[in-house]
């Protein structure tokens, strides 16, 4: 690869061809353009005229220069110039590229990939075999070298992992023989570095590249004194200010920034947020930083549940330690928000759980049951009052039916020792909790034996009697502790097990989380996992992991960081372990550490130069044509070329109605028609509107303006009173936006007269092409149910008394909005009392516009019927038009009863 300053050439010897350019200059210069032979009758007039200039004898200098530049550009282009070539020390032998590919690589992943790509490009040019090793995602067998090209193909698929590389058997993994190593490090110190370095150093030179930017990460968030502390970790020396964002869903469920805090790297970011906001936080992240390490997911640890404590009225005032709620309050106070008061008040505060301690009867059981069914958690504790109040009846607010009376063991009046607890069953939510030996039960309430008792028991005594039972109610749960909440019946409330059990019931969230004891016993299933860039993805087919493994935090492909859940509980497994300290990697003296300098990327210039040469040659074609006088003949070609070169500029879209037109339409009543695209039909429509306008002007107080063709796509339809829409068999369908406008128009009281112009000879809309087209056109319209026009429709009397609605054809097939089903014919009235409003559509096929159409002098344009009868028919058609417009303009005013006597008289009743 030859290099000339910042430009290097793939095949520099091609540049020698530039030396031939001067020769070409002389050759081209001597050649005049070939003359054009042309027959011309006027040549007799030309004889004797002399040319004034003789320049065209030789190729003009500018054309020559053009060709030289084009040729030069082509030669240089084929030589393969590259701007800012990647200049690397070229070694020999195979090259191993090891990439940490951990979360710490994510922010500078593009740089890492770019560096690897450059190394592979150099290796390819030097013909070195290469191999790629992602240390966080080790291959199964021994690595082997391939061509640099093949390796480079796999590079874009490589992504950083949300965990860090670990120890491995490097000797078994690394290829045989000597090779050079390029280690793309993420810059963090970790134990495996020494081992890997020891494995590769004896095999060849080792070069390390690591990004210059410090690695930043978020530690585990902690809730301390109502504020959330998020440690901001960095391996850099300088403490820069960073912004930490708390994100979570807003009440509408949309993910938003819930808080932003600026903190120094190495310090804690303190979020002092109201509990409402804090409970919604799902993750913390460093603003503008990618990578799984810059994300800290939150789980139940940050949430403080609202728990409503309800106890029976305290008859024994002052006996605080004996109060049924004392131990509950003690257990829940550090981790939950406790509400106390009457049950009715507390249900309004939307608690997460309600605890009834020794309450026999609830004041409003339906309401409480309803609350539970909607997802509430009701925990009840037995007690003397409850035992006394038991009736043996089924209670929806108890998980099992209880026997009346209680049971006492180990007391003075009974034989046998107090009972201890049986180990928790594996499917119990308490599975895995360690039973303290000192927990004994002296009294309990007993369940009636029933088939579902066993399945509802989640904790039992050693004799098998249930201690805790649970049943689903709707979407919620009802849990019953068969002992009291104070130390009267058992020592359970005195033990740590009590708190753990409450925690397992998702009541309280413990502070000592992720301990083995906490997590053990349950199988945790990943719900969503983090990828290397810090985005949460569905976990897919990841298997469940045991709590012990989860607690051990050995992150890897089998245990990616993310959100894990078991039953009601959810645990966030974050990339950064609690207490992790980030330290910069330190490299021994024998290792070359490459500075991370952002080099401008190599820019191949070949394409641009060849395109330039081609463009110049095109110009040369035009120039040659111009010089030899053929340009005129080639004008068509030139125009075509120019069109091809010009970007296609679409005409401005007409979306707005012309204001002058809008003014004209709004100022008067304007009869408008919808153009069909068929000129003959449109002409008739326009003439018909003119004819009807003239009749309206002459006979009524309506003075319409000149008719218009409405443009459904751009016109503001609200300004139009009435649209005449002739339907042709091949009418174009309006756009969806046009349909939306038409629907708005119809809802706003407009009227469309659809006219299929086919005399409806085949019955309404069934057989003619126009009828079918009308169905297709009108399908997207909001058209109410229709009916054939009834004899008492207001259209029959809105101006003239009509029973027929002929146009150029006579047919009864005119359809209007159906009358409401409850319209009734009152006694003695000729008309039904119909609904108000104007029918939004009138549909028929009588070709009204043709009957109305007049020419410029006001004479009818088309014949209607025969002779006098035909003229009568035309007159009735006009009357129908007048009635229609009157109906549009006055609504159902003629439907009133005001005119009934006169109408009765005229009807001859």
């Amino acid at each position, binding site marked *: 690869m030859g290099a000339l300053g910042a430009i290097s050439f793939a095949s520099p010897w091609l540049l020698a061809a530039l030396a031939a350019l001067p020769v070409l200059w002389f050759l081209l210069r001597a050649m005049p353009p070939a003359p054009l032979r042309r027959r011309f009758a006027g040549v007799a007039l030309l004889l004797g005229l002399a040319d004034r*200039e003789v320049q065209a004898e030789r190729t003009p200098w500018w054309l020559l220069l053009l060709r030289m530049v084009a040729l030069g550009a082509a030669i240089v282009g084929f030589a393969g110039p590259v701007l800012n070539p990647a200049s690397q020390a070229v070694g020999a032998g195979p090259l191993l590229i090891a990439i940490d590919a951990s979360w710490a690589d994510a922010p500078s992943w593009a740089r890492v990939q770019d560096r690897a790509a450059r190394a592979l490009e150099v290796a390819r040019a030097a013909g070195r075999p290469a191999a790629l090793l992602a240390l966080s995602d080790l291959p199964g067998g021994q690595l082997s070298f391939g061509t640099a090209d093949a390796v480079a193909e796999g590079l874009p698929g490589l992504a950083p992992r949300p965990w860090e590389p670990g120890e491995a058997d490097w000797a078994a993994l690394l290829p045989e023989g000597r090779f050079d190593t390029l280690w793309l490090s993420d810059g963090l110190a970790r134990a495996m570095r020494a081992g890997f370095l020891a494995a590769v150093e004896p095999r060849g030179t080792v070069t390390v590249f690591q990004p210059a930017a410090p690695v930043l990460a978020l530690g585990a968030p902690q809730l301390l004194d109502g504020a959330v502390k998020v440690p901001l970790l960095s391996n850099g020396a300088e403490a820069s200010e960073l912004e930490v964002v708390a994100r979570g869903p807003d009440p509408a469920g949309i993910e938003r920034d819930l808080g932003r805090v600026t903190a120094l790297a190495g310090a804690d970011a303190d979020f002092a947020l109201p509990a409402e906001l804090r409970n919604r936080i799902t993750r913390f992240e460093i603003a503008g930083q990618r990578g799984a390490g810059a994300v800290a997911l939150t789980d139940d640890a940050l949430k403080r549940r609202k728990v409503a404590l309800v106890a029976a009225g305290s008859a024994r005032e002052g006996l605080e330690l004996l109060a049924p709620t004392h131990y509950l309050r003690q257990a829940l106070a550090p981790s939950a928000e406790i509400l106390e008061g009457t049950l009715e008040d507390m249900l309004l505060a939307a608690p997460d759980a309600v605890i009834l301690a020794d309450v026999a009867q609830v004041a409003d059981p339906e309401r409480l049951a309803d609350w539970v069914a909607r997802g509430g958690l009701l925990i009840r504790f037995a007690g003397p009052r409850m035992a006394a109040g038991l009736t043996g009846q089924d209670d929806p607010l108890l998980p099992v039916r209880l026997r009346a009376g209680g049971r006492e063991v180990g007391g003075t009046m009974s034989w046998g020792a107090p009972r201890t607890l049986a180990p928790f069953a594996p499917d119990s939510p308490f599975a895995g909790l360690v039973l303290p030996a000192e927990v004994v039960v002296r009294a309990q309430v007993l369940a009636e034996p029933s088939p579902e008792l066993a399945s509802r028991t989640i904790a039992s005594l050693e004799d098998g009697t249930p201690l805790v039972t649970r049943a689903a109610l709707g979407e919620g749960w009802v849990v019953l502790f068969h002992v009291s909440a104070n130390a009267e019946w058992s020592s359970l409330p005195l033990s740590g097990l009590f708190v753990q059990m409450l925690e397992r019931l998702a009541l309280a969230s413990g502070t000592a989380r992720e301990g083995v004891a906490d997590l053990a016993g349950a199988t945790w299933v990943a719900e969503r996992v983090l990828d290397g860039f810090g985005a949460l993805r569905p976990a897919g087919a990841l298997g469940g992991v045991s709590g012990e493994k989860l607690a051990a935090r050995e992150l890897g492909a089998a245990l990616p960081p993310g959100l894990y859940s078991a039953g009601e509980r959810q645990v966030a497994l974050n990339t950064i372990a609690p207490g992790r300290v980030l330290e910069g990697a330190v490299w021994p003296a024998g290792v070359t550490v490459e500075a991370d300098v952002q080099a401008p990327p190599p820019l191949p210039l070949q394409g641009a130069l060849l395109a330039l040469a081609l463009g110049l040659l095109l110009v040369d074609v035009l120039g040659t044509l111009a010089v030899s006088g053929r340009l005129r003949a080639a004008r068509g070609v030139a125009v075509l070329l120019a069109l091809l070169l010009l970007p296609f500029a679409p005409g401005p879209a007409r979306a707005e109605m012309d204001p002058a037109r809008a003014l004209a339409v709004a100022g008067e009543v304007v009869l408008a028609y919808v153009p069909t695209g068929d000129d003959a039909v449109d002409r008739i429509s326009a003439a018909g509107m003119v004819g009807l306008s003239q009749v309206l002007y002459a006979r009524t107080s309506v003075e319409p303006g000149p008719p218009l063709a409405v443009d459904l796509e751009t016109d503001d339809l609200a300004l139009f009173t009435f649209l005449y829409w002739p339907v042709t068999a091949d009418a174009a369908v309006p756009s969806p936006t046009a349909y939306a406008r038409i629907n708005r128009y119809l809802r706003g009281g407009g009227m469309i007269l659809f006219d299929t112009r086919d005399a409806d000879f085949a019955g309404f809309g069934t057989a003619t092409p126009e009828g079918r087209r009308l169905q297709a056109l009108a399908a997207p319209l909001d058209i109410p149910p229709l009916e054939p026009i009834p004899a008492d429709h207001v259209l029959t009397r809105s101006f003239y008394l009509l029973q027929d609605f002929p146009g150029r054809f006579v047919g009864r097939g005119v359809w209007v909005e159906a009358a409401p089903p409850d319209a009734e014919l009152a006694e003695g009235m000729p008309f039904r009392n119909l609904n108000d409003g104007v029918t939004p559509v009138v549909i028929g096929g009588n070709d009204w516009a043709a009957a109305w159409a007049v020419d410029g002098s006001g004479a009818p344009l088309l014949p209607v019927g025969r002779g006098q009868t035909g003229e009568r028919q035309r007159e009735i058609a006009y009357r129908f038009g007048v009635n229609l417009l009157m109906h549009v303009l006055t609504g159902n005013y003629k439907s009133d009863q005001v005119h009934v006597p006169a109408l009765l008289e005229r009807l001859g009743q």
Partner: protein
Amino acid sequence: MSIAPAQTLRREAEALAAPLPPLLVAAEQLAASVQMGAHGRRRAGAGDEFWQFRAAAAGDALRSIDWRRSARSDAQYVREREWQAAQSIYLWVDGAASMQYSGAAARGSKATRARLLALALAVLMVRSGEKVGLLAPPSPPRPGRAQLLHLASLLAAPQDAGADYGAPAAEGLAPHARALMLSDFLGDPGAVEAALAAAAQRGVKGVLMQVLDPDEEAFPYDGRVIFESMGGSLRYETRAAGDLRLRYRERLAARRDLLAGLARAAGWQFGTHHTGQPAATALLWAFAALERGR
């Protein structure tokens, strides 16, 4: 001789002439060349049609008195007839090679247009009863629609495009007739001058109509061009054709001035028609020029 091209030419000519009224060619030399024609002149004279009765005056020949009319009253009446006269019109259409030129494929050649104009004028004349003939190939003037067919076949016949430029012939011209000459007049103006002189000697008046292609007017050429005449006899090479444009136009204008001067001197009229324009305008102009005879 094939009939089809002649019929096509005639059909087109009839279509072109259809909108115009019959042509009335003013005949100035009444006395000399009075021949009975088909149409009246709206004045008393020699003819077949009755025009009016008038009281006999001194000098009227006895045999001119209409006895039947005179017997109904005491005075003598003379029956006058409407004067009817026909004019002879000669057409000359340049058939030389230069007339075959057409600047664009969409336009017909100048010869096509010239023949069409000539025949359309003949249609108009025949319709008004005049006699039409051809100068070359010689065909004496005759009235009637049969003559049209004859003229059409003569005009549509393939011309021997021997010469590059045509020269008008004045040999067959009858005295005091009218003539219409259609050519591009790009050849030797001397021939035109001689023909006009001969025609003027015989008292013939007429119209010179120059038919040109628009390209011959605009000269839209550039660069290095070798121009050849249509017959190939003339050749002219230029290196910068665009540079010649102005000078060519000057020469064309000078030629036109020369022709107009010649026509004026002989009592003729001169007009130019471009094949890019509708033929009807040229026909209208020729029609008016012949009818008015000015």
